[in-house]
């Protein structure tokens, strides 16, 4: 299992962006295919892009979006992502409930995922409690 790399001492300037806001809501996230339904996710599922060695964003500590987790609010977007991007067909999906103390989110719609959100956790590097809910 991959270990979580050290969290930088500070986020980039003006990060999170001012239009990110606190919410109380549930979101979906693609996680490792090694999980089963009902499993809790683990730290490896919550490695930020700047710290994920296999990510294109690896090492980009100055880029604010590389400090945010991708989430989807709409289950339909999970199906769209899976039909268009084969990588996601093998992934499991976890549900995470975010409360205002857990950071801020920003709606960042994609061509293929209108419900895409970026989540800057509080504290940075937080590994939240989340459960695998979808095959």
């Amino acid at each position, binding site marked *: 299992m991959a270990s979580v790399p050290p969290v930088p001492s500070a986020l980039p300037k003006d990060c999170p962006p001012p239009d990110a806001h606190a919410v109380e809501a549930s979101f979906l996230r693609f996680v490792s295919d090694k999980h089963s339904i009902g499993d809790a996710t683990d730290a490896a599922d919550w490695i930020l892009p700047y710290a994920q060695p296999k*990510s294109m964003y690896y090492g980009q500590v100055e880029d604010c979006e590389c400090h945010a*987790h991708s989430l989807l609010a709409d289950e339909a977007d999970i199906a769209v992502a899976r039909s268009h991007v084969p990588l996601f067909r093998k992934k499991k999906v976890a549900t995470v409930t975010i409360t205002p103390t857990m950071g801020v989110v920003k709606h960042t719609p*994609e061509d293929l995922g209108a419900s895409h959100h970026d989540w800057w956790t509080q504290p940075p590097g937080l590994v939240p409690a989340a459960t695998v809910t979808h095959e």
Partner: protein
Amino acid sequence: MSSTPRAGTSLGSGLEIERVFFSFDGPKLFVARNSTGQRFLAVAVDDTETAVVFIYVPVSNERLVAIKSGLISLREAITTPEGELFLATTGENATPIVKAIDPTTVADNWLPEPHARLSVSTSTQPAFEAAGLGKRAASETRSLFALELDRPDMLRTEYPVPDLRDFLEDIQEVVHAIAAEAEDKATSAGHIPDYILRDSELSLVELQAASFVMVLAPTLGDRMVEMPLATASAGRLISLLEAAGDEDVFRAEMSTMRKRAFAKVRDLFEDLVDTNVSIHAYLALPDGTLRHAGLDRVDAGRGLRILTDVSQTKTEVLIERSTLIGANIRTRAFELRDEATGEKYAGKVEPAALRQLDGLQLGAGYVYRARILREESFGSASSDVKITHRLQMIRRAIDAK
């Protein structure tokens, strides 16, 4: 923008991401371009503990437009590439791989689903934005009327000419008929006065994506300012589309409408139902005001049933023995002859009867029982009464119950 996978010589140098279609913790479906201008469509197909695996497909400008507009599916883009297909990996701790692969060897679980197509704005047509229509109307100091058509079998900014001709004619005829009512010149038949036809005429200004948006405006001709009649009539049409979502409100709205306009609205709803279209209509006024109404397929079907229920110009014709002279499932056209009277009927087939029609034999020796809805309608520019027929049911005579 982020860096791309470590590219070897196969993908060229200076590879940069140009357009991302889906990003989840980093781009997973995107277009990249190398220093020589060669573009690649890239899609993440797999990963391991240490690397993400992408397929890179070289694409020409024309091919990219076709992929972005949905003309070519993502799967087709990979299985029938214009050039060599490449496998590439990202991963700081992984051995970088960039290698050419045979498109016929790509495993099915590495291919997008057959139905997966993009539908994003391409350079062929600008993407429609409602707010932009309001701003444009204000800057051009004229009204703009946009009609967005969503048809499940249409994935691109293209539309069959016969269907588009019928739809545009329906819209113009409704606007003319409503304008005649607004001018207190409504008649059931006969021509509409020329000045009303002129002042309520619409012009096609532009086509936009997606999937198919027409921007119309009152015809200016040699006038310097637009006449208000077309805009007011388009506004009434928006109100009708709004009302169609509620049965009682729609009945009340249509009950105030005179015979000609009623028939024209019914023609419009028939076309929407026949072609399985959802419609969004937007009216932007020069002061920047924007009105919108949407009508999905369910609302259109319910609206048409109400219009048929209360129509005063319809007659149902039940033919016990008829011969099918011609039928075209694609164009939904039919022609049949009543064996008892020799009278011929031709027109459109209603969606429910299309399945019944499929596979039926034409010509003598095959006798069918049919139900036809006969409707009178009235042209705007002549006193002719037009009779239209819609085939509602057709069965073999021996099977008819």
